[in-house]
């Protein structure tokens, strides 16, 4: 089925078209939700909620962006709202065990903990920015659409997020430190 056929089917409430949309997008949607929330149960709840909202609002989809971008917008909005509420309710920071939840086995977890730990320590919006750009592979325009902001804002926030991630990783990786601000090319 083409994207147009899937959309048309979804607008008619056709279950086959809905399932096709789900099959084409669910792995990416679930992955980004899991990595933003760092919680298996929450990721499943949010994925279900996002798809139900998408199917209910399919007539509001204007085709300005790809349907996958639109779905990401719904899912990411849900995830950020969830995290805001959770952090407000508990005040609990992300933990190492939550970070482990995104890796399927301990061996892989050992290898990947540095980056997952570091991402876990970032502000949810910074983490979401980095995941949308470097994991999902969205360009600035799509990220702006997903997060409902200007492309220039995406650029500056990504820069901020990269800087913060670099700062967190400093003690884990032997990445080169920033040169003194006076550094000039010869």
């Amino acid at each position, binding site marked *: *089925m083409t994207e147009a056929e899937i959309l048309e089917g979804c607008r008619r409430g056709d*279950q*086959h078209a*809905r*399932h096709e949309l*789900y*099959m084409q997008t*669910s*792995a990416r949607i*679930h*992955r980004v939700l*899991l*990595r933003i929330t760092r919680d298996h149960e*929450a990721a*499943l*709840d*949010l*994925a*279900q*909620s996002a*798809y*139900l*909202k998408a*199917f*209910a*609002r399919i007539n509001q989809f204007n085709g300005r962006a790809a349907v996958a971008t639109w779905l990401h917008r719904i899912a990411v909005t*849900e*995830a950020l*709202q*969830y995290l805001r*509420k959770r952090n407000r309710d508990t005040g609990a920071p992300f933990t190492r065990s939550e970070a482990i939840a*995104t*890796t*399927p086995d301990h061996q892989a977890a050992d290898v*990947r903990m*540095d*980056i*997952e730990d570091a*991402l876990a320590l970032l502000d949810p919006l910074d983490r979401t920015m*980095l*995941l949308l*750009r*470097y*994991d999902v592979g969205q*360009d*600035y325009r799509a990220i702006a659409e997903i997060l409902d902001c200007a492309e220039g804002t995406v*650029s500056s926030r*990504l*820069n901020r997020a*990269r*800087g913060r*991630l*670099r700062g967190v990783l400093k003690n884990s*990786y032997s*990445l*080169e430190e920033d*040169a003194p601000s006076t*550094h000039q*090319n*010869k």
Partner: protein
Amino acid sequence: MSCVESELLGRFFDEEVSETERTEIESHLRQCSHCVSKLAELSLMRDNIASVQTPDPPSGLWNSIKASLDSETPTQRMVQSQNLPGSGRFRRFRAVAGIAAAVGIICTAAFWIGRGDSAQAAAVDFTVLLDSISEGAVEAFDRFITHHSGQAIDPTDAHRSAPDLDFEVPADLPGGWRRAKTYRLEFGGSRGIAASYTRNDGEFLATIFHPPVKKENFGTHKDYPCVVGKHRGHSVKIGEWRMMHLTDPTTCHCVLSRVTDDAQLAELMSAIAPRSKPSEGHGH
């Protein structure tokens, strides 16, 4: 030229600069090892972020979405979707499904109430798959996976997950099939494996491996003996779909597909059961 400011260098790395900016930065990079190393750092960061493995969503997720869609009127669905806080819905579904399953309304939802319950299914219940296959093979396969407590696994863990079975889940199968997902299944304390495959044209194929138990439930569907290449087995045909079983003393190898060419079927069977010998049939 001074070093490239970090935000601009980030936009250059992300290919979000104008042609003029790109030309200037490339010119600068030819003579600035510092900025080159900053780009390498960005590349390392991107690769690390993208390389983290996560599990696939469970096949039951679609079932829960579908059940919610089926159980709500359009008005209810609109109101609920606008009011949902974003969490707890999946858990609420499982609670509701527990009641529904108790009165026999939603059998597959039992998976979400207690995965151990459906794991107690003693027979290999193909009726779950075959009864609804004409409505959609992918959905029917998902139902079968859910019914037998399917858990998505890494393909490299398949043999470790079902050590008593002799099978293969190759990344590619003859005929242009590419592996999509691999699952561990439960059959009343025994383990099974299943894998889904897709072709470029969207065609679906599934393989299922289970212990050679005698209780294969095909419901009202007739199971006929058949010969595939040098192997003997049995098959069930529903419309265009055919489920082939190649049997041997350790493993029942099943292929669900719309393939009709016997030579291609024989190639498929050889790929998923390369060590099975013609004389080893267990004779369902």
